[in-house]
């Protein structure tokens, strides 16, 4: 267990450095931050001075090493665009993204598992066939289109829900939450659906096929032969076993929710780290972009770690495999 954790953390560090490296080599081609920071009438001398001040005149390896060194000390630099420490920006934006990710993750998970179980148990039912077919639309349309379409339907035509932003938020310590106000909750609905739809479809299909397989296993047959109730068989036995493989995939999917939030946040003007990233890309705000990518990698690694631990908790076979026995 401990060995596993150590390995995972070591892996995570490697991932982060690799990501940082790729990110950094990419940023060199994203444009010139100075051109963006200076007004159109800035002279060439001004521009050169600014380039120097930002350390952008240094060769790539020097810049990269400096960045890594600073990050190791917890310093993620200062945003070129808004002149604030990146870490503050991220901290300020993180609650929005995490709340959105949480809700859409829950939506994907609850909806996915629920519908997956339903369609597996009523395999040949008309409704479950319809759900299966319709759900595919969720993975057949790009997220940005789904978002825009939802806005037009629910905000413009029906006027039920807000079209942008987070609504009223409440500040609790360093965290701003939209969970405590009506407008905050209403604002969460459309972005969460947009962001979670894709994952929900995947989870649902996965749950369905896993469940169908589990329902054919010998231990389910044996459970039936023991006369257990259908409820106990479906939910006590089958669902539990279905979830084991589902957990891994779900972990990966939930991790990518944060990445896909870029698009959803842009469409809904959600003030999270994803829209921060997009603004930063436009302004070639290298420190913010690099930090964002590190953050996503870190989040992903974290989610995967949690998933693996969950795996241990759910499946006793794994537990004893690491603690010995034969």
């Amino acid at each position: 267990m401990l060995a596993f954790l150590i390995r995972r953390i070591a892996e995570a560090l490697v991932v982060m450095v690799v990501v940082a490296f790729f990110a950094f080599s990419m940023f060199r081609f994203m444009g010139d931050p100075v051109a963006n920071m200076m007004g159109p009438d800035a002279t060439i001398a001004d521009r050169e001075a600014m380039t120097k001040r930002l350390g952008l005149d240094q060769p790539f390896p020097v810049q990269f090493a400096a960045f890594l060194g600073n990050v190791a000390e917890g310093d993620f630099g200062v945003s070129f665009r808004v002149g604030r420490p990146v870490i503050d920006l991220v901290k300020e934006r993180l609650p929005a993204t995490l709340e959105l990710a949480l809700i859409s993750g829950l939506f994907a998970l609850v909806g996915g598992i629920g519908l997956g179980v339903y369609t597996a148990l009523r395999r040949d039912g008309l409704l479950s066939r319809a759900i299966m077919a319709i759900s595919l639309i969720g993975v057949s349309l790009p997220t940005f289109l789904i978002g825009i379409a939802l806005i037009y339907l629910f905000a413009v035509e029906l006027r039920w829900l807000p079209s942008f932003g987070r609504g009223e938020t409440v500040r609790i310590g360093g965290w701003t939450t939209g969970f405590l106000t009506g407008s905050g909750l209403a604002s969460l609905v459309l972005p969460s659906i947009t962001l979670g739809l894709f994952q929900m479809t995947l989870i649902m299909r996965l749950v369905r096929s896993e469940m169908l397989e589990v329902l054919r296993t010998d231990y389910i047959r044996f459970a039936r032969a023991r006369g257990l109730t259908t409820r106990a068989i479906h939910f006590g036995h089958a669902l539990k076993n279905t979830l084991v493989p589902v957990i891994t995939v779900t972990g990966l999917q939930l991790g990518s929710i944060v990445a896909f939030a870029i698009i959803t946040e842009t469409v809904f003007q959600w003030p999270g780290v994803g829209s921060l990233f997009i603004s930063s890309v436009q302004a070639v705000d290298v420190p913010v972009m690099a930090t964002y990518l590190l953050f996503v990698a870190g989040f992903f690694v974290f989610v995967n770690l949690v998933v693996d631990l969950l795996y241990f908790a759910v499946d006793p076979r794994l537990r004893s495999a690491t603690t010995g026995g034969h």
Partner: protein
Amino acid sequence: SDPADAKPFRWARGQDAPTLDPHTENSNQVFGLLHQIYEPLIHRDQDGKIVPALALSWGLLPTDAKTWQFKLRPGVKFHSGDAFSADDVVFSLKRAMDPLAGVRTTLAGVIDVVKVDDLTVHVKTQEPMPLLVNQLTNIFMMSQKWAEANKVTRPQDFKNKEETFAVRNANGTGPYILVSREPDSKTVMKLNEGYWGKGQFPLQATEVVYSVITSAPTRIAALLSGELDFVQDMPVQDIDRVAQTANLKVNTGPEVRSIFYGLNAGDPELASSDVKGKNPFADKRVRKAIEMAINREAIQKVVMGGQSAPSGTLIPPGVNGYSKELDQYPKWDIAKAKALMAEAGYAGGFGVKLNCPNNRYINDEKICQATVGFLGQIGIKVTLDARPMAQHTPTILKNETDFYMLGWGVASFDAAYTLDSIYHSRDKVYGAYNATRVVEPDWDKKMEALGTETDTAKRDKLLAEILAHVKDEALFIPIHNQLLAWGMKKGIEVKVQPENQLYVKYVKID
């Protein structure tokens, strides 16, 4: 209407001001937001006319062509309650001239600012500066006391890795007081009850909620759904829909911004062309042919949905140097253009790459696409490289483009502002955006002379001469001047300002 009624004004733009520090950045977004909170000495009103703000009157000292005197408005208070005085003006102008200040180029040439008495300030310039007043309309006045108390006596320095107080806090003399700010998302301001202009301006909005919505369809959706009262950056294609919506309307007006192409006529060979050993753009006939092949009216009608004014010069109307005659553009004539191409020895055409931004000007990428089609008809095979502005600008600044789109707003409302940056050959001070690689030392001198010539008539003549030359050379192919479209609820009354800046104090709400 009863002024006691609380009237929120919900306003959205496509991009936020990155900072609230009035001197760090020279950008339309910063000025657009800060004009509600801070004020300059001199204002450009909703029509673009120069009007007094914190300075009541100004003028050159009769004795000294290099010293301007400003008489300040008495009785003005900052939001913090401190009184506004000459000390603050001296402090603010000097702060704006700091090497760290993004706005310092506007004050290039100013050498000193002196307090004469509490309500009089002198500004001394190196050379005579006839246009100084034009340059001051976006230089905001800060409170020296507040700045000192909050350690923001200098603009943001990226070297020290801390946030300065002025980035997210503001203390101006303006009509609205900052209440809260979530960068890139929402900024709330409330009416300044102690504003000096009370009674002079409508000041009807009691609260201003300024939202940023990057995605254009979402922005329009929010207006359509009633979540917004006012959208400043209207996508052209939605104007009709909004205008036809029952309780919405669209106000339009000219912006002081020209869109044009630049051609690399100075290099011996075009890096992106298949023609080797010579530069087709060096041939004036080719440049003229290009000018003639572009159907500006079609661009106006189809791409811009009518929201542009086709142009023949780099200078928009309203700017010093503009004339109707200069603005004539050649008739769209493919046959003639082809003939010119043949005459120049390029009957078979040639290939070249066009660099274009895709997120800066109204429908920039689409205009470029249309241009690719037009030039294709006279045999020029254009490959389009459309990128975000952040990547586009360096190609110009580093001379990596042969054919580029550029838009230029005229902050000082004088043509010299444009010419200095895009036509003067490149050196440490001038020509940063000139990628034509053409060097004409005589004309450079003439342009430099514009900066110091105080005799208006003489200066105008010189300007006209230079502009005529630019037009004749066709190093630049003007396309059009942008029109601005502001969408709003019916019942709101405001004129479109040519700098694309909204002063909420002028807004009337029914």
